């Protein structure tokens, strides 16, 4: 244990996701030895992000205004919604430059064992967006793991009566890898999602 403020800083850092007690200590001592101007910039960025950034009233993405940049952009196709778990997934899809529609951020995935059910996610908000018939296609881009799959299954069932086109991101082999190292589930998914080679 350290004296007062140093320990307070270690404790606060240790509460961040993915930061264990040792890392918290390392970061704290890095901050102690750093240039005061650098530390002030960090403190300012922390305070600002909490003050200025909020969540988009339509899609749940991070936003600096009432609505996020994507929802404000009239060039984005309002007929297609890509459903993701977290705002960082929006960033990942945006980087591909493949997608010109809009987003819906659920805020996580259904995980009963962690006590997270459908009502804890922004599913009601999604259904409300689908009510007026503008949206014709839903792309389910939840994580390709068990909880992400279960969430996609649940959503697909919920929106089925609405008659939308519902698609799931193809998942399968990582590009750049060898086929022989793929596990059965991944390889099975790759077979399900195979596409026609049009040559």
């Amino acid at each position: 244990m350290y004296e007062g403020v140093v320990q307070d800083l270690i404790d606060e850092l240790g509460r961040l996701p993915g930061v264990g007690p040792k890392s918290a200590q390392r970061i704290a001592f890095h901050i102690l030895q750093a240039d005061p101007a650098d530390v002030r910039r960090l403190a300012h960025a922390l305070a600002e992000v909490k003050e200025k950034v909020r969540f988009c009233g339509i899609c749940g993405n991070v936003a600096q205004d009432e609505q996020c940049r994507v929802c404000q952009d009239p060039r984005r196709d309002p007929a297609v919604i890509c459903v993701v778990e977290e705002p960082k997934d929006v960033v990942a899809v945006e980087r591909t430059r493949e997608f010109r529609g809009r987003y819906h951020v659920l805020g996580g995935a259904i995980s009963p064992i962690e006590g997270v059910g459908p009502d804890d996610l922004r599913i009601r908000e999604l259904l409300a967006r689908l009510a007026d018939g503008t949206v014709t296609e839903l792309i389910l881009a939840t994580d390709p793991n068990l909880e992400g799959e279960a969430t996609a299954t649940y959503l697909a069932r919920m929106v089925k009566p609405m008659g939308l086109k519902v698609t799931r991101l193809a998942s399968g082999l990582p590009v750049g890898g060898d086929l022989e190292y793929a596990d059965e589930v991944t390889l099975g998914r790759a077979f399900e999602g195979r596409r026609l080679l049009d040559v």
Partner: protein
Amino acid sequence: MTLFRDDGLVLRTQKLGEADRIVTVLTRRHGRVRAVARGVRRTKSKFGARLEPFSHVDVQFFARGGELVGRGLPLCTQVESIAAYGSGIVDDYARYTAGTAMLETAERFTDHEGEPAVQQYLLLVGALRTLASAEHDARLVLDAFLLRSLAVNGYAPSFEACAQCGMPGPNRFFSVASGGVVCGECRVPGSVVPSPESMELLGALLTGDWRIVDSCEERHAREGSGLVAAYLQWHLERGLRSLRFVEKSAGL
């Protein structure tokens, strides 16, 4: 430093740091084991989807000391898939919620890490296989698993003879605190009087008589599920988180 190899079912995964996970595995010979899988969240991980919940795996652990459980968490070094029940479970929401409740139950009944729980392990293998095959209603497969888990852990409920005095059945009253059905003499305040069909269903679930189970009516299945849930909660110190998300099955 010691290598251990065992079969196991993945019960739970938790994120650790940037790309690692802590996986909780119910093994055949070492009971419940928690271990670190390095780099498993990267898309190019050698583990791939093998270490997801519902996976039945042949796994090699690397422990620092001479025991698998004790000095820090062991590492998963190699994993081969025996069966991936997840894909047959996750594509139906009722199966997914029932399956998750099974995993949590198995975890709760194997509280002492490293202590063999082979009957619980075999029960879970059988239940996940049945669930993934979609042959029976998901909620009923879950209830059968819950009753048998209670039984192998020493809490077998009685559905015929009086749980207190042994008077041969059928007995009308049911009391979770008394251990199942009780006769008129042994009944305690708070006993309920379920329908005879629900009692027959619960007995069939416990013994695995699927002919009776598959032909039951919805109201009896619902009543039976309520009694199973009450009985289970009585014997576990804390309630199961996942039980309230289990759906009344679509097929019923």
